[in-house]
């Protein structure tokens, strides 16, 4: 069973639907026991880093996630959920992340050419940096759907894919049993579904 952690950030309808369409046994929950029972964890998230990490902490779910991951349970963070996995974010302030991956989250503003629009929104091609089971169904030039204004850097040890937007932005990370996607696989058509399917089988 895969649990999508519900901590009051964003809309989980499409994410749940995408797993259901792949035939996965999926539940949306904020219940510690359900999370403990699950085989795999999805950490979703949209919105601001500061709000999200505060909500996760106030529900006590940060500790639950860290504990389950330390047991070896596989986790995929999506969009802001991926950003939460890093050590720190500099999104409107300075925030401690879950520290499950090495790296920090920084604004695109100032680090990509000023003529490019922020947020980075739309379909962009994945550039594979390392082979990884989650990318088994992804071919060169395959596009996925991004919506974000901040990106992770300093995460070379986990980086498996980037996307070109003025510079190569972190698109996907994976190290040991922890993975993350900056884009929305649940909105990325067959390419996104192939990544979710690979997570189910991972």
């Amino acid at each position, binding site marked *: 069973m895969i649990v999508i952690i519900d901590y009051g950030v964003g809309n989980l309808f499409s994410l749940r639907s995408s797993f259901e369409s792949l035939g996965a046994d999926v539940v949306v929950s904020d219940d510690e026991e359900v999370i403990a029972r699950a085989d795999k964890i999805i950490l979703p998230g949209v919105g601001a880093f500061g709000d999200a990490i505060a909500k996760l902490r106030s529900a006590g779910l940060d500790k639950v996630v860290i504990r389950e991951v330390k047991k070896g349970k596989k986790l995929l963070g999506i969009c802001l959920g991926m950003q939460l996995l890093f050590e720190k974010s500099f999104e409107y302030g300075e925030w401690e992340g879950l520290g499950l991956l090495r790296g920090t989250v920084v604004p695109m503003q100032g680090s990509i050419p000023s003529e490019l629009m922020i947020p980075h929104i739309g379909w962009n091609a994945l550039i594979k940096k390392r082979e990884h089971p989650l990318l088994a169904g992804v071919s060169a030039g395959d*596009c996925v759907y991004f919506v974000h204004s901040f990106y992770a850097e300093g995460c070379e040890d986990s980086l498996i894919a980037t996307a070109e937007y003025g510079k190569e932005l972190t698109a996907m990370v994976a190290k040991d049993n922890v993975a993350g996607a900056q884009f929305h696989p649940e909105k990325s058509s067959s390419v996104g579904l192939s990544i979710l399917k690979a997570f189910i089988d991972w």
Partner: protein
Amino acid sequence: MITKRIIPCLDVKDGRVVKGVNFAGLNDVSSPERLSEFYSACGADELVFYDITASAEGRALFTDILTKVARTVFIPLTVGGGINTVDDFDRVLKCGADKVSVNSGAIRNPELISEAARKYGNQCVVISADIKRVDGDFRVFAKGGRVDTGMSAIPWIKECVDRGAGEVVVNSIDTDGAKSGFDIELLRLVRSAVKVPVIASGGAGSVKHFIDLFKEIPDIDAGLAASVFHFGEIKIPDLKRALKENGITVRM
């Protein structure tokens, strides 16, 4: 690089897809669910649904349909029509919409944009503007293009973006349904006025019109059309191939 988006638009009334020609004379085309799956499979980058139903029963039917679509179609979905309050945002976002498009509701109450952007983020709020030339000015029209608001288009769009709209759909009433090409003059003005994605709507009649759009205004983000896609006059795979051959970056 980010790709140019091709967006079919589905006007839904009483559970069926319809498309107006110059906003009048509606024709029944097909089932929203089937059409959505078809478009997703053939490479549409996003879908826009406009709920043009007035009745409460029709509105409930629309959200049922949206829910069904969002269970099987995994590309971004934008929903508009009858969005007057933040509760309306909530209603369609719960059914799987990713972005919500506001038009008359924002004209009546511009604060709606600010409130929704604060609650759901700028990326979620799309301002859709129906624009027509009147006395040498570009004017904003409300109520599905029927009512001249007297407002100039560019200041209005700028205000919406300042309030937090993350994307602009520019629908030219002058070119809509005429199939003689997008309104390049108007689109160029809007493009240079704001720094958020701009989606061109109204006037596409051929593959060449899309090529012209992206060549004439390289910074335009997307082209939207309805009937030419619904009636198969333009097939999305052919369109994307032609765009690619013309050096325009698209998702294949």
